[in-house]
């Protein structure tokens, strides 16, 4: 609940900022370069005189967009692969799970970098790369739940009455894995924000002039900004951590609500 109380205002602010904040994230004001916070610019302005607050809000929109879309894609792919692996027999299961093993061998960040070097930069490729990276964990959880479920009487009965794979998946599989899906999806948004920020921080994700929390932090890789203008990277950093913490709180709460003993790690 505490998580939601933090999350909802952030969400509202990023979605509606054009209505109440006078500055545009890409407007350049050469008379206000690297200024500190003032009544006009609450968080100051950056190296080419853009308003940090406006960039922060627009960046939040980008980051949350990337995180939510990639969450949706990886949930759908993860569920489908896990469900098919769990219900469709050993051969499919074996192949799918070896693929998942393989995808999990590589350290996530390395995999991310390699994929990003192939897919290119920008919002679209970043979503693609994060989705590609994230589904294996979910599909493994869905699979193990369904393997258990497959032996249960009501599934065996349904199968005996001639139910097809499609019917089994959506009438029995989906309702019985919904708790995994909801918790995974929530935590995946937090993960997506972190991955986007990391990727953009290294310069392979969302690239300027498009604002995102990650590439605002990227400016701190220059010693000048890091030393002299800490506000320019501390604000996005702080908002990033607060958002991720809030989402994790919500996710933990949901997990406890569904099943106090559930193991999701």
């Amino acid at each position, binding site marked *: 609940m505490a998580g939601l109380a933090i999350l909802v205002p952030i969400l509202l602010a990023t979605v509606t900022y054009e209505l109440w904040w006078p500055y545009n994230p890409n407007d350049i004001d050469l008379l206000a370069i690297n200024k500190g916070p003032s009544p006009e610019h609450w968080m100051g302005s950056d190296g080419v005189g853009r308003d940090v607050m406006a960039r922060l809000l627009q960046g939040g929109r980008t980051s949350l967009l990337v995180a939510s879309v990639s969450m949706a894609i990886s949930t759908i792919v993860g569920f489908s692969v896990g469900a098919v692996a769990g219900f469709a027999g050993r051969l499919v299961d074996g192949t799918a799970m070896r693929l998942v093993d*393989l995808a999990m061998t590589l350290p996530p960040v390395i995999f991310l970098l390699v994929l990003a070097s192939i897919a290119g930069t920008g919002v679209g490729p970043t979503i693609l790369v994060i989705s590609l990276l994230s589904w294996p964990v979910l599909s493994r959880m869905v699979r193990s739940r369904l393997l258990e479920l497959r032996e249960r009487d009501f599934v065996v009965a349904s199968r005996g009455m001639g139910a097809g794979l499609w019917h089994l998946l959506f009438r029995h599989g989906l309702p019985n894995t919904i708790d995994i899906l909801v918790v995974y999806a929530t935590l995946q948004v937090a993960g997506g924000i972190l991955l986007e920020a990391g990727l953009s921080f290294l310069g392979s994700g969302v690239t300027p002039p498009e604002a995102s929390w990650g590439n605002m932090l990227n400016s701190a890789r220059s010693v000048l900004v890091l030393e002299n203008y800490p506000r320019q990277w501390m604000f996005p950093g702080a908002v990033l951590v607060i958002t991720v913490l809030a989402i994790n709180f919500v996710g933990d709460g949901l997990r406890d609500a569904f099943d106090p003993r559930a193991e999701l790690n």
Partner: protein
Amino acid sequence: MLQYTLRRTAVGLLMLLALTVLIFIMLRLAPGDPIDAYINPSVPMSASDLDVLRARLGLDQPLPVQYFARLGAALRGDFGYSIQRGGDPVLPLVLSRIGPTILLMVSGLVIAIVLGIATGIISAVRRNQPTDISLSIMAFVGISSPAFLTALLGLYIFAVTLRWAPAGGMLTPGAPFSFADLLAHLVLPASLLSIGHAALIMRYMRSSLLEVLSQDYVRTARAKGVREFWVIVKHALRNALLPVITLIGSTIGIAIGGAIFIESIFDWPGMGLLMINAVSRRDYPVIMCATLLTGACVILVNLLTDMAYAAVDPRIKVA
């Protein structure tokens, strides 16, 4: 045990082979002409020369044939030439970066293990007391904050503001090599690298120790009049450490990921920095070689963890 070891090793080798296939496919998906990996960019070549070279290298052959040719070359240590850096061969370039990365990661891991296990024990022993609650909150923040952010903050506080440690690099340029100099450069990045990992280990250690402390044999030990300190160290800790060992092994990939950010922020001359530069310049031969080596390391570490675990816990072999 022998059979188990052999089976795990075989699986590991198969994974490595599959990894080479994956990398080969990714290399082909990458934009650009694969021949770039073989030519020395500082030597100009005409289009007809390129065709001759392509035929000689077998790049006009079907993909499976090419794959096995590449695999053979890789086994002999030939990974092609770097596109940047005036066309140096890739393998020595990557190998020269492994040492610093291992140094950074091992020191970070040692700090994380010591810190994580110690705080985990304190937290479990002082369950639900202020110490435990504040440690748990710190761990939660540690897990939620990304490595690059803690690293930036650490760099700003300790190197820029307080000037306790040098802000980057591995050795002072120009100065003769000394161990103290290396250590001074190592402390800050290694401790920052360990934060996330330490938080994770601490959470596992805490829950695992709490579970063990409610077991019958712990109650028996207490009933016999064993002192609380020895109950925890001798009876509970040994059993509680098992899941933590697996965790450490299985999160080695995360540690490598964290190391990449730390290296980029602290200009640490390791694999991560090499990789980031290679990615921003689309230097695919270097990216692929580094990826393959990293993947091989992860597979090896997982293999060793599995075996260490089997050696400690005989029940594993049955499963």
